[in-house]
């Protein structure tokens, strides 16, 4: 649960900022989707845009979480005991 929140919460905050900046500069009606002008309502475009940003940011947070895992956590399940203090989770 904690890990899920570590991924979802910071990405939520950053997605909010990204959404604000992006749609201030870009009018949703100027967007093209697969070569076709977007014909969703503006509120729908903003909302989908927000979830798009959120998903992208969450992917980045997930990667960060994944890459900072210690050796002990990665070796878990293969029968290797990593000495404490050597990348073991604090």
């Amino acid at each position, binding site marked *: *649960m*904690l890990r899920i929140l570590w991924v979802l919460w910071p990405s939520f905050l950053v997605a909010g900022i990204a959404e604000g900046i992006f749609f201030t*500069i870009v*009018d949703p009606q100027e967007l093209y989707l697969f070569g076709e002008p977007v014909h969703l*309502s503006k*509120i729908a475009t*903003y*909302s989908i845009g927000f979830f798009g940003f959120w998903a992208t940011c969450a992917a980045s947070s997930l990667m960060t979480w994944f890459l900072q895992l210690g050796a002990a956590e990665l070796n878990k399940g293969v029968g290797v005991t990593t000495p404490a203090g050597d990348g073991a*989770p*604090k």
Partner: protein
Amino acid sequence: MASNPQMPPQESRPNFVEESLYEVHKKVHPRAVSGVFATWRWALVWITQLVYYGLCWLPWNGRQAVLFDLVERKFYIFGLVFWPQDVIFLAILLIISAYSLFLFTAVGGRLWCGYACPQTVYTEIFTWIEQKIEGERNARIKLDAAPMSARKLGLRTAKYGAWILLAFWTGFTFVGYFTPIKTVWSSLWSFSLGPWETFWMLFYGAFTYLFAGHMREQVCKHMCPYARFQGVMFDPDTLTITYDNERGEPRGARKKGVDPQSISKGDCVDCGICVQVCPTGIDIRAGLQYECIGCAACIDACDQVMEKMDYPKGLIRYSTEHAIESHWGWKEIIAHIVRPRVIIYSTILAVICLAFVWGIATKATLRVDVIRDRAVLAREVEGGLVENLYRLHVINVSEAPLRYSVSVSGLDGIEMVGERVIEVPAAAARSVTVQVRVPPGSGKRGANQIFFDVKSLSDPKVAVHEKASFLQP
């Protein structure tokens, strides 16, 4: 990973600890408190929430006074209309907010967290509801521990029901700042609210319910970025909630009115009320810690105890590191407010505020974009004249419909065909196509600079002189 909560091994966890969203934590049941600072906090609750719940209902010139119209991409704030081109004002506003926060924090510590942050404000309201329905701290602890019964079920239903209603109203209000609230209100009752409006209303409401009802201090402790960096704005002259260690220790219980010196103890009677009232469940007597949101509930509570004991108030008080060390009074504390950090923050803030006010006051009420028609470079028309086509995009940023005269200059014999007077409704934009013609020999071959003048017919000061290029073949 420094913030990784230290989880005690399974067997050493006390029974009353519940598994929570962020960490293993003791549920905090803050005890109600009254006093000077509690009154201040409630005043702020009233002010901020009257503004939040009320402002969206205020009419202005036949529209909603404050409306962030995302569909039309226009922000209305009373008499002002902001277009996407005005994003600079939003940026300046954010910088002003940031510097105000820095300044307040450097001088008065976590004033924002303790009194004005929505998390604090909604937690205060939700806790008040909880206390009205389930009773005071001890009653709530008992109720939590009690097995499910008809009474407990009834109280819980009432509490969650009241929370949900308030959270829903909060979500409804939130949406009402982006879609006119009267429309939202009427479509709510005719079940015709758009899917995304419905979604955001429930989304915002659900987060209010979760954050203010259930997560409370955990939001401040684990989710708020500000709580983590506010420490860098502190210095030894920053006002913080401080326990006077020297006066209080050694702490210990005693009878009312006993002179502490006669029993060789400090003034702290170790009643623990400062811990019971703390919304984040910390003991301020251990010193300043990042969990302290600066709400001053412990000051109010301790002052009441000191009064009962006939001891002077202020064992826990707003003070600074230097003031505690050097036994300063308010006079010295106030004298130390003026220091380089505060002067720098104030100067920057004052300059930006002036720039903002100046920018708003001189904000153009008319904008014109001239776009040359690229499909037709230049063509010859009747009488041998050379014609170029232009599209004028005229934006009326003012609150009234206006008529503008359009004229062109810059080349000998230049003339314009098309609308010479255009009317643009209030806070709207209009595009018109104009044909500009010159005699064949006028100007050089290639691009020539010409000018469009767009002037308001009612106020000659509202005018735009915009350049464009005329192509002579």
